[in-house]
C-alpha cells in the first residue's frame, strides 16, 4: 500500500485498505454473512446458492477456493445419536453438493438383498399371485449384502448370489382365519427344494434338478451360523387365509440397488437439514419477550430475568428450530428476529431398514462415491 501512495505522487489520498478495521485477506462482515448463511426471510430465503467459484472475491484479494488441506483441517463430524437402526450426526465444513451426493447414494445406490423371484407352487388365498410376490419383495431381509455377488441374466442361481426362502402355510377347514406374518418365511440354506420337471430323457442321476445350483450349503459360512438369515421384522403381515386356503411358495432373494427398484433401498429414508441460527437483532423485553416465547411451537426461546422485574428473551435451543416462521410473522417482528441457516453445517439423519447398521451404510455410501471418481479417472487416462 505504501507503493501506491508514492506512485500517486505524494497526494494525500487515503486508500480504503489503510483503514484499520478492514482486515486484509478477509471478507467484510456483510459479505461473510452472504457467503456463509442463508437468510430466511418472511417471504422467501435469500443467499441460498453457495458461492463456489474460486475467483469470486478475487477483486478484493480474498481467495475463495477450498483447497484440500483447508478442507481436511476444518472438516468435523459429531455423532449426536446412534442406535441400532438410526443415527443422527453433524457434518461441519462440507458443501451442500457433496452432502447431497451422500444422501442420493444412501437412498439409491447402496446395495441390499431383496426377494426378486417367487416360485409359487400353490396359492388358493384371496391375495393374487402377483400382489403376494410384490409384498414379499418389499420385506426387508437382515443379511449383509457385502457377502454376496450380483446376479446377472446369464448367471445361474448359486449360493454366492441367491438366498432362498420358503413359505408354506395352510389354514385347515374348520379353524378360524389366520394371518400370515413374515416370520413364516423360513430360510433354506441348502438351496431350492422345488424340483424342476425335466424332460423324459434325463439320465438316472441320484439328485433331481432344482431351481438353484448350490454347490455347498450357506450354513458353511460362519457369519450365517451366528446370525441366521431371516426377515428383519417378524410381524409384517403378508396375507390372510380363510379355512381351506393354502400358500406354498419359494422366494429367491438377490442383490440389487435402489435405483432399479425401491425394495433394494437400504434406508427407510435419509435426510439432512442445515443448522438453524436464530439471532435477536435487538433486545426483546417484557411483554414482547413473553409473546415471542409463546409464539414458538418448539420452545426455541427462553425468558431470563435481568432484575428489577424486567425480562428479556434469549435463544435457548436454536437447533430445534423448524423454520415455521411464526416468530417473524406479525408486524415489526422481522427487525427483531433473524432466522438463518449455516451453509456448511449439516444435521444428517439416517434410518436404516435393518440390513446394515446406519454407520456402516454411510461408510459404504462414501466408498461408492470414491469408486465413481475412480471410474472417471481411469476412463480419462
Amino acid at each position, binding site marked *: 500500500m505504501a507503493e501506491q501512495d508514492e506512485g500517486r505522487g505524494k497526494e494525500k489520498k487515503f486508500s480504503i485498505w489503510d483503514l484499520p478495521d478492514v482486515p486484509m485477506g478477509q471478507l467484510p462482515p456483510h459479505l461473510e454473512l452472504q457467503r456463509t448463511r442463508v437468510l430466511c426471510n418472511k417471504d422467501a430465503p435469500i443467499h441460498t446458492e453457495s458461492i463456489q467459484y474460486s475467483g469470486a472475491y478475487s477483486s478484493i484479494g480474498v481467495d475463495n477456493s477450498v483447497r484440500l488441506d483447508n478442507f481436511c483441517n476444518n472438516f468435523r463430524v459429531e455423532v449426536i445419536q446412534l442406535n441400532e437402526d438410526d443415527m443422527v450426526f453433524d457434518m461441519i465444513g462440507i458443501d451442500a453438493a457433496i452432502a447431497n451426493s451422500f444422501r442420493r447414494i444412501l437412498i439409491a445406490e447402496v446395495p441390499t438383498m431383496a426377494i426378486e423371484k417367487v416360485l409359487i407352487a400353490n396359492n388358493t388365498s384371496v391375495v393374487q399371485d402377483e400382489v403376494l410376490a410384490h409384498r414379499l419383495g418389499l420385506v426387508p431381509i437382515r443379511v449383509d449384502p457385502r457377502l454376496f455377488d450380483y446376479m446377472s441374466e446369464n448367471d445361474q442361481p448359486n449360493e454366492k448370489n441367491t438366498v432362498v426362502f420358503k413359505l408354506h402355510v395352510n389354514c385347515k377347514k374348520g379353524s378360524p382365519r389366520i394371518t400370515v406374518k413374515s416370520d413364516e418365511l423360513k430360510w433354506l440354506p441348502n438351496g431350492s427344494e422345488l424340483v424342476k420337471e425335466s424332460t423324459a430323457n434325463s439320465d438316472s442321476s441320484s439328485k433331481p434338478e432344482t431351481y438353484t445350483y448350490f454347490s455347498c450349503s450357506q450354513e458353511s459360512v460362519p457369519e450365517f451360523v451366528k446370525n441366521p438369515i431371516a426377515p428383519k421384522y417378524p410381524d409384517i403381515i403378508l396375507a390372510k387365509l380363510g379355512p381351506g386356503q393354502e400358500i406354498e411358495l419359494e422366494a429367491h432373494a438377490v442383490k440389487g440397488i435402489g435405483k432399479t427398484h425401491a425394495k433394494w433401498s437400504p434406508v427407510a429414508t435419509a435426510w439432512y437439514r442445515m443448522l438453524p441460527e436464530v439471532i435477536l437483532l435487538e433486545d426483546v423485553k417484557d411483554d414482547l419477550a413473553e409473546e415471542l416465547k409463546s409464539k414458538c411451537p418448539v420452545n426455541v426461546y427462553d425468558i431470563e430475568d435481568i432484575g428489577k422485574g424486567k425480562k428479556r428473551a434469549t435463544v435457548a435451543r436454536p437447533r430445534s428450530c423448524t423454520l415455521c416462521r411464526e416468530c417473524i410473522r406479525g408486524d415489526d417482528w422481522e427487525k427483531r428476529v433473524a432466522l438463518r441457516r449455516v451453509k456448511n453445517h449439516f444435521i444428517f439423519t439416517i434410518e436404516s431398514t435393518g440390513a446394515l447398521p446406519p*454407520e456402516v451404510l454411510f461408510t459404504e455410501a462414501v466408498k461408492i462415491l470414491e469408486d*465413481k471418481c475412480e471410474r472417471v479417472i481411469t476412463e480419462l487416462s
Partner: protein
Amino acid sequence: MEHGSFTDNSAATFSLTDEDHTLANSVRFTLNQDPRVTFSGYSIPHPSQARINIRVQTTGEAASEVLKDACQDLMLMCRHVRSTFDKAVEDFKASNAVKAMKIDSKDSSDSEESE
C-alpha cells in the same frame, strides 16, 4: 468421451454415461474450487438417458488434466470424510460405553470407577 477442439485443449466437454446428478454436482463443485478453472458446469441432455455433459474451461491447462485432478481431490475428500466419520463413531461408542459403565456401577454399589 471428450468433445473439444483439436488445437486448443484448454476447453472441453466430457460426456459420461451411467452417471447422474450424484457424481456430476460433486465434480462440478471440486472443479469450481480449482483456481485454474474459468468455467465449469454440467447438464443432463435427457432425463431418461443416464448421460451427463461436464463442461470445463481452464486458464490454459489441458481440460482433461484439470478434470482428473478434480476427481482426485474429490476422492481424497471422501477418504478424509470416511476416516473422520469412523473416528467420530468410535469415540461416540466409547464414551457411551463409559457412561453406561458409570451408571451401572453407581446403581449397583457404592464403589465407582473413576476415569
